[in-house]
């Protein structure tokens, strides 16, 4: 993990040029919270291929990459659309057998990321009696040392080539602040070789210092920051805007088959004009309403 000497603020394509086909890509956030969607749409636009995903519990971020054909294999801790049902493209790809799924659980990803962050070869976790080691034998192996009164597993270190995160604001130096929880984001950043954060706002250094406790990803862990207002849409950016329930429902509907989802991607990810065109398509009033909390009374 090297640091750069210039400002870490770069445009989206410059940031994403670090992502090569076949890389292992971690994704931060939690279900609909803080998904780095502008970065995800950027990867779709660039035609990324054969990625190996390691998403934190997520929703539309891993689902869109899978539906866009960018992914060879994904780890799955939890990929869900919650009250909107199952993740549609992930589900279709997993059920058809076209997607490799490395089944994981909380202890597996936590132990693996921590081992990765610590440059240890493996992490030790309790064997919880599940079927995960059966379907993911390379991810969970019986620990060579059994002691302490309960069965133990070893999980190999996880070190993503790239991690994609979304925060609410950052300064030029690359200190990324979160108005809500940090979830696995910092642990992912610590384990990663290269960290790209999108943020909704660029703020002066003094704003960051005003409440240093909000800085969940200090600049030492950040290689590139992309300023993309509404960059977590259609998910929420905690404290700034709500998740877009109508758009998410439309996304699920558009995901009914590949042709329909390709049409969605053509309009929402692969269109000319990138994120500016995307925001235009979503519309000023829709975005304004989300900023107001999701519903204007």
């Amino acid at each position: 993990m090297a640091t750069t000497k210039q400002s870490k603020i770069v445009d989206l394509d410059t940031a994403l040029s670090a992502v090569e086909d076949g890389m292992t890509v971690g994704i931060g956030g939690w279900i609909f919270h803080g998904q780095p969607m502008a970065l995800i749409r950027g990867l779709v636009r660039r035609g990324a291929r054969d990625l190996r995903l390691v998403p934190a519990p997520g929703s539309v971020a891993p689902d869109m990459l899978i539906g866009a054909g960018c992914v060879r294999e994904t780890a799955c801790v939890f990929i869900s659309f919650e009250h909107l049902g199952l993740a549609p493209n992930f589900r279709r790809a997993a059920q058809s057998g076209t997607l490799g799924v490395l089944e994981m659980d909380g202890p597996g990803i936590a132990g693996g990321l921590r081992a990765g962050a610590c440059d240890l070869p493996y992490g030790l976790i309790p064997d919880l009696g599940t079927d995960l080691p059966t379907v993911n034998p390379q991810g969970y192996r019986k620990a060579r040392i059994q002691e302490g009164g309960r069965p133990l597993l070893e999980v190999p270190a996880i070190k993503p080539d790239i991690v994609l995160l979304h925060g609410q604001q950052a300064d030029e130096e690359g200190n990324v602040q979160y108005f809500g929880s940090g979830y696995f984001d910092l642990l992912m950043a610590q384990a990663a070789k290269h960290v790209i954060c999108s943020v909704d706002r660029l703020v002066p250094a003094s704003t960051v210092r005003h409440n240093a406790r909000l800085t969940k990803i200090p600049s030492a862990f950040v290689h590139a920051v992309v300023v993309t207002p509404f960059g977590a849409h259609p998910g929420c950016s905690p404290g700034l805007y709500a998740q877009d329930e109508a758009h998410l429902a439309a996304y699920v509907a558009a995901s009914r088959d590949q042709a329909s989802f390709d049409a969605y991607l053509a309009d929402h990810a692969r269109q000319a004009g990138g994120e500016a065109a995307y925001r235009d398509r979503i519309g000023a009033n829709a975005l304004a309403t989300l900023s107001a909390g999701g519903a204007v009374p």
Partner: protein
Amino acid sequence: MPASTAGFALGEMLAVLLARDMADGEKAIVGTNSDIQVAACNLARQRHAPHLWWVSGPGGMTNPTEGVVRPAADAENIAVAQAVMDLPQMIDFIDWKVHFFDFAILGALQTDRFGNINTVCVGEHARPRLRGPGTVGISALCGLSRRFYIMMTRHDRGAFVPRVDFVCGAGHLEGGSSRTDFGLPEGGPRLAVTPLGVFDFEPASKAMRIRSLHDGVTLEEVRDNTGFDLLVPDTIPRTTPPDTEELFMLRRAVDTTGVLAAKFPWPRAERKAVR
């Protein structure tokens, strides 16, 4: 399905039934998409368990309360929480520590005779008929907490199967002492609460047993909707429905915007009766 459910929604009843079983001073964890769990914990705190401690698994907020049922991971909970912990430190007690939590409350795609839980897939893992969301903390919470609750908003043969297709949360495994024989700590499922009744696990065999059936639910109806043989007590009690005070507290102090009623009505057949 229950015959006389007028006056409260399924979600409200499940929250009340769960809250009743919680004791003061206990520690609990609530995951994402857990409106009923949030309401149950906060109802218990309002009533008989003022020192119940619960934490949002992903978000780290402890005991957030403002009379509105919000998603447990929601940032707005920070303003009404007692603490906000960071997940990388929480993993130590979520994913590793034995008996840190007194209980968790978990839903599932499938559960079985011994209370094992599946949220991963229906069918073979390599080519599933239905691909579910995955495991996240379920493995650890089923494996490590002192007990857990199975909370199901549907009760049918798709959800109550002889053996789950994928064990992602260990209940009593193969029954009997198989859970502790495997090396898991004492624990496992204590109750399953469903639209039809409340179920527990017979102490020796650890097989699922009827504890009470909701008003109007027949033994035949439960059997028709359960994919394995339930143990049946000599006399089957009726579930004590939520009383006036419980509903008043739930609606006045816990779920003032009616999230449970809106999101968890009784299953379709009973909607007319409920409204």
